[in-house]
């Protein structure tokens, strides 16, 4: 089937390149802060001290790499699934430029210490307003396309896209409600225990609706596209979708186990967190059974392994995460390095893996060419896999070790170890984590090179044709 229009791929490509740019910055900062943890001499003055850079690391990667890539990939998926170009292509172009301008300002604001101290919502109110505007611009185009689509049915990926747009808007606006005091400083409308409850409702669902549902949207689209195998069970897709988005919003309190938050809210949060294993594994099982029809794809189609390993880490993540919510496990590993180990399995093993695979599929598809080098893509795959596993496993070990040491009591009922004694035992593991990070970053540089060379290849082809 053909039609007389063309998709607005320039904006899509712009977002992918922007995401790569911010991603590299965020990763390099990640390496530096990983080393600061075992050598305090690597803190270089005010602007390059750990407290500022840790905040920068998570935000640049979450907003720059994660959301930047999602903007691009969503525009692509939505155009394809609605069978029409973006309703407002110029607005999308403006969205791209505003995104990058906003990222520059957001980065500078964190450097100078404009920090609300709300995890994953550190940006102060002027940046918050810019982010809301960005989201509205994005929603106008995506929902505009969905409402004027040339295809009767909405495919699974579109469900996840719509849920993402609606939920993130609610979460972000409510959690950032604050009274501006000066240009650089505001105070939350929520105080104390109540603000904790709001923040972790936001915090956990930011993970849910920025790093789960969007990645599932990509997974459900790009897995069938790259393997030629349709998703195993439509019914499983439906029940997983609705139960996932229903249960997610109850679970934020698992971040507040054994805090002054009322017990009943903690308990509800833990119960729903455990339930989340089911809808998460619905997608995992659906992915496995999809490829189950022809496992040789793992060898013959290089992207299959990105998706299958990615969804496997999603599966592990969604067993580990709920387990951490249970009180007895929380009491051991909460506040230790176990948790960054958990988070990085999700971001490095699942989110980045699927985003990279989606970009690998999409860039050649847009240029009507093939990937520059499958070999480089495979090298990238193995490096990021090894880097991520080394990262997560070292953090789990040292997290359990420190958690156990902090709990241990001597025969007379006093504590066995001082805080410093438990801290220094982390250093060898933290050094290994830095090595793991380097391996991962090198893997990502292979990815960046491969994408840039594929674009060059596509441009050369277009020139020849012209």
């Amino acid at each position, binding site marked *: 089937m053909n039609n007389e229009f063309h998709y607005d791929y320039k904006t899509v490509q712009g977002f992918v390149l922007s995401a790569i740019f911010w991603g590299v910055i965020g990763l390099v900062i990640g390496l530096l802060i990983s080393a600061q943890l075992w050598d*305090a001499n690597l803190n270089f003055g005010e602007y390059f*001290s750990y*407290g*500022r850079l*840790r*905040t920068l690391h998570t935000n640049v990667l979450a907003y720059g790499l994660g959301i930047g890539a999602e903007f691009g990939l969503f525009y692509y998926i939505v155009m394809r699934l609605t069978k029409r170009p973006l309703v407002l292509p110029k607005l999308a172009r403006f969205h791209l430029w505003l995104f990058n301008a906003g990222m520059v300002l957001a980065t500078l604001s964190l450097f100078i*210490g404009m920090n*609300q101290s709300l*995890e994953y919502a550190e940006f102060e109110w002027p940046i918050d307003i810019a982010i809301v505007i960005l989201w509205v611009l994005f929603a106008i185009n995506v*929902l505009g396309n969905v*409402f004027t689509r040339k295809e*009767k*049915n*909405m495919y699974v990926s579109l*469900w996840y896209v*719509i*849920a993402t747009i*609606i*939920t993130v808007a*609610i979460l972000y606006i409510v959690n950032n409600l604050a009274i501006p*005091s*000066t240009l*650089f*400083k505001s105070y939350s409308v*929520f*105080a*104390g*225990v*109540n*603000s*904790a*409850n*709001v*923040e972790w*409702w936001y915090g956990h669902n930011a993970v849910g609706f920025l790093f789960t549902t969007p990645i599932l949207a990509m997974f459900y689209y790009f897995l069938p596209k790259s393997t030629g195998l349709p998703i195993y069970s439509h019914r499983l897709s439906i029940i997983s979708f609705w139960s996932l*988005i*229903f*249960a997610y*919003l*109850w679970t*934020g309190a698992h*971040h*507040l186990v*054994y*805090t*002054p938050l*009322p017990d009943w809210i903690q308990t*509800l949060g833990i119960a729903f967190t455990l339930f989340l294993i089911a809808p998460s594994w619905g997608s995992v099982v659906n992915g496995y059974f999809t490829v189950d029809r022809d496992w040789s794809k793992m060898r013959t189609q290089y992207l299959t392994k990105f998706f299958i390993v990615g969804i496997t880490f999603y599966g592990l993540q969604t067993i580990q995460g709920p387990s951490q919510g249970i009180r007895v496990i929380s009491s051991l590993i909460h*506040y*230790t390095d176990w948790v960054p180990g958990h988070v990085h399995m999700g971001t490095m093993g699942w989110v980045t893996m699927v985003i990279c695979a989606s970009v690998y599929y999409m860039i050649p598809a847009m240029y009507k060419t093939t990937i520059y080098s499958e070999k480089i893509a495979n090298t990238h795959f193995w490096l990021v896999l090894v880097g991520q596993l080394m990262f997560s496993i070292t953090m789990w070990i040292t997290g359990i070790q420190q958690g156990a040491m*902090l*709990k241990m*009591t001597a025969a007379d009922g*006093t*504590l066995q170890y001082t*805080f*410093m004694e438990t*801290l*220094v035992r982390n*250093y060898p593991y933290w050094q290994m984590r830095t090595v793991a990070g380097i391996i991962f970053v090198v893997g990502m540089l292979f990815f960046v090179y491969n994408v840039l060379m594929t674009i060059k290849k596509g441009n050369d082809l277009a020139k020849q044709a012209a």
Partner: protein
Amino acid sequence: MSNHENSIYSKALVFSVLAAVTVLIGTIVTVFLPMFTSGMHPKTENLTTYTALQLAGKDIYMSEGCVNCHTQTVRPLKADVLRYGDFSKAGEFAYDRPFLWGSKRTGPDLARIGGKYPDEWHIQHFENPQAFYPKSNMPKYPWLKTKKLNPADIKAHMDTNGFPYTEEEMAALADQTQLDALVAYMQVIGASVAKKEAIVVDPANVEQANPMGSSPEAVAMGQAIFKAECAGCHGQNAEGNIGASIVDYAQAGNADADTYVTVANGFEGAMPSYAAKLSKDKIWSVVSYINSLKQ
């Protein structure tokens, strides 16, 4: 995907509304409704609003990202209570917009830091944490003492929070540094509840003579603990710094039991207690080391 003619998957508006309702149910039950109950807005009896200097300090705490490494909530768990003190109460945080409980303890919890050390401890520790704990990974914060506060901004911040202040208080800010503010904030954290240590040694129950004796092993063990935990205040060679000279103390010839009780229980506002953090033998070995300093 089957083509059910009238499924919600072909009606974008109906679908979107349903999705919004689905995500709002859990939101309303666990977040929005509790907001309107008094249980979410408790206030401890002795809780006072922040002074201008303390609020400025809290803002620096937020600005520097301290929350990345330090929690401010003691869990109702035995090990937490032993290490940090009484577990956190919901009413302690009524003036924190937002809460600063944190999610990671790269450094220790700070919910009970107020009054634990004298101001001078914080001043020196922010300047150079490694002088207290050589293997600490906390960054140095030397710039704090060079930066003056901005009274106009702080006034606006106080107004936004609705905290009372006097003009003299505001005028005094102009001479003060970020370090002064941060230290003032440190000292008010957790101040609304009475200090409650999990183990307080009763002097009547303490052995009169040091059971660890004066063996070289006991002295060496005590010295190692002293260097790790005490040397920051009392000096690497016990010559004194923020805290008294332990060499001089040893000369005075205090009773073993008194030394033991001092180390175990500390002095509020001047010296932390160690009764829950070091075993009896360890504390006695510190006594052995102190006795060995007598010339």
